[in-house]
């Protein structure tokens, strides 16, 4: 079975027929809507958030169709966009997962916006340091973009040491990090790197070289980068150069543009009530923004939006309701509105 189909099958199992197949589509594409983000938490699919940004509806439909034909999933009669696993499907998935366990470090929801940035930074850093080490200053940088070159300048200035020294240091940090990850194949990253007189492979070439399916390679590549980010976050003291890969990433950068504006206004102390008129948006839209902020910005406090005791009641109701459906929670905590419930759930998800 193709690796892509495996992921779809896994997602459908997690959804358990409670959402349409298009919620899988939004999830894999990394749609930054409150609904999609909440679903990712609710059905424990945060891993796969945004891992296929170029996914098309038709390729998802095709995969679903083919698995339904093979009898792994069953279309719901009442709601044709909902599917549940068959017994055969469950057994098959279990077997597949034994053979190829899900990537351990992958965490799309948490790292999705950061991944591309970290990759661009690591690839340009290695290229530039490699050329420094070989005293070559005529080469075409593999990454364009002003910001990344500004970042690079800062990093090199910060570590203004002997060129041989910086090469050695980067080598030590990279190798010790890559060796720390369990079950990781460092070639997944190393083949992609460009340096002095050697140009890195494209994702497709690297997959072919490793005789991996392209989708499987792509997921493995993300898995490795997510491990790297986690390790840098956990052990910043072990890395003097690599920690700079995470330099100055504003937490609000992961927000959609519109939510970021709302966030900035809140940061400046503008009260919630005034936001709709300042931003000329509907109150419900502002509420969506705030839920998105709560989901994404770790130290964002929701106390000014929901009273503490109401928070406690919502949490209690959520814990006793297995599907965490808004409607059932609302019924048991009638004094809370939907916005407050969503906000508390957003914080609870972490």
């Amino acid at each position: 079975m193709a690796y892509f189909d495996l992921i779809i099958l896994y997602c459908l199992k997690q959804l358990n027929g409670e959402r349409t197949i298009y919620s899988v589509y939004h999830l894999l594409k990394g749609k930054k809507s409150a609904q999609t983000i909440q679903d990712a938490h609710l059905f424990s699919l945060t891993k796969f958030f945004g891992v296929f940004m170029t996914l098309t509806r038709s390729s998802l439909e095709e995969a679903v169709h083919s698995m339904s034909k093979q009898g792994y999933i069953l279309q719901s009669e009442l709601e044709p966009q909902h599917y549940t696993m068959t017994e055969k499907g469950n057994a098959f998935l279990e077997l597949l997962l034994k053979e190829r366990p899900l990537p351990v470090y992958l965490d799309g929801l948490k790292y999705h916006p950061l991944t591309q940035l970290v990759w661009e930074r690591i690839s340009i850093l290695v290229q530039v340091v490699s050329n420094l080490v070989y005293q070559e200053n005529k080469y075409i940088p593999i990454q364009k973009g002003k910001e990344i070159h500004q970042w690079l300048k800062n990093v090199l200035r910060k570590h203004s040491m002997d060129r041989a020294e910086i090469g050695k240091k980067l080598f030590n940090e990279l190798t010790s990090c890559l060796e720390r990850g369990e079950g990781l194949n460092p070639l997944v990253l190393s083949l992609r790197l460009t340096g002095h007189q050697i140009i890195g492979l494209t994702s497709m070439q690297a997959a072919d070289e490793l005789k991996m399916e392209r989708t499987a390679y792509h997921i493995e590549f993300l898995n490795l980068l997510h491990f790297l980010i986690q390790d840098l976050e956990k052990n910043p003291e072990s890395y003097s150069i690599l920690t700079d890969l995470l330099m100055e990433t504003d937490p609000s950068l992961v927000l959609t543009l519109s939510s970021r504006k709302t966030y900035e206004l809140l940061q400046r102390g503008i009260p919630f009530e005034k936001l709709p008129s300042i931003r000329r948006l509907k109150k419900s839209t502002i509420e969506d923004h705030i839920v998105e902020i709560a989901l994404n910005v770790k130290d964002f406090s929701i106390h000014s939006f929901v009273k503490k005791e109401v928070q406690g009641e919502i949490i209690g109701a959520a814990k006793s309701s297995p599907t965490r459906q808004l409607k059932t929670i609302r019924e048991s905590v009638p004094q809370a509105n939907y916005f407050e419930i969503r906000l508390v759930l957003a914080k609870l998800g972490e």
Partner: protein
Amino acid sequence: MELEKILYQYFGYSYFKPGQKEVITSILEKKHTLAMLPTGTGKSLCYQFPGYLLEGAVLIISPLLSLMQDQVDQMMKMGEKRVIALNSFLSQEEKRYAMNHLDQYKFIFISPEMVNSDWVVNRLQDIKVSLFAVDEAHCISQWGYDFRPDYLKLGELRKKLGNPITLALTATATEKVREDILNSLGLSNANRVVTTVDRPNIALVVEKWNRYNEKFDRLFQLVQELQPPGIIYFSSKKVADQTASFLRGKGVGRVMAYHGGMEQEQRILVQQQFLNGQLDIICATSAFGMGVNKDNIRYVVHFHMPLQLESYLQEVGRAGRDKGPSVAILLYVPGDEQLPFQLAEGELPSSAQLDWFFSSLKSNPDFLKENSTISPDLRKMGGFTEVQWRLVEDFLSVHLIEGIPLELIRDKMKRFVEERLASKHTNIFKMKTWIDSAECRRLNILQYFNENGDTQITPSQCCDICGVNLQNYESRVPQEGEKEEYLMWKGFLRKLLINESAPK
């Protein structure tokens, strides 16, 4: 003053390539100059070199954003930091900074659409422009194969800048087009430096097959036999992709596709791999080649028929820059001219599209924004392709500035599109005539560019009509990859980051 000395000092070359010295001398003598130099002869040197000897800035007008960026990268790479590209890629912030510090730059690249802004023109008027260089100058001519309406404004801009010394550069332009360039720029007496379009070390071959399958089989055979590296040109991204993966599947060397539909990072990697000798074959669309300076390309195959002899020659000219024996092979099956006709039509808006467009503009003036840009919604609604849209925008802005009413612009534009289409058709027929001709291919091309043909090339290295021997171009050197060390990740990283041979 010995020019060669300066050449060595600034650029590290010992000799000029044909035509370069004549062009540079002409500019240094303060003469307007039209230069037709074949691709790969270092056209950019013609404006960079005088830049170092003249006081003031060199302004270079360049039509393609990617090409402009390549040029800037190359110059930066060579250590020239006083260079900037003014184009729509710049953020508002960057643009403002650049405009306020214009006098700090020696080389200013600018795309024609930037010239629409009075602000930009005013700032340019404040600095001293010592050389006004127009790259790809054939874009200024309605007879040229790549006409861009916004190039028409350049004559006006020249005047506003006080008629600076001007250099018009092109790789391929017929006599008619050359006349047109000089007229549009308002240059009545200009020096002309025209080098031959002939590339004696490249054999020109046309092979006719009866069916698509035969053509494809022949391509497969050719890439197995010919000495790489080589480029195969396609008119379709899809076919380029499919052929590349077919060839990879068959284990034919190291092959990748390259086209405008790929992500930027991939494009850079593939291009750099090819330059670095990590790839043998590129299956490309015409997007590949601009700014690719690789001198040992041994063959160029055209799987589809080019739209005109000019672009055919440009693409063929990427082979054999090292003067070594190289071959260009065009594969043809009856009916291949259909695709160029479709492509030519696809580049131009239809009459019905234009009617709809102008009536929408009329009934809803909000679509027309300040500084003559049009709301991109209209593009979507009218189903314009990117190329069509650029043409519409350019044409409209050029004529709106002159204060012409919309109806008149519409009629003018329709006439223009008709003429363009007719001219494109003529070009395709000329290409087809060349393919069908029973005369020496080389002489035929020279005649097209009004050159006297007296090339003395042995028939076995000239063309299929004269009796080329393709065995001359078959592979002798087996290609060897350096795989092993690649697959030891730690050793690979060590080699990348630790220079064992560096002095301690």
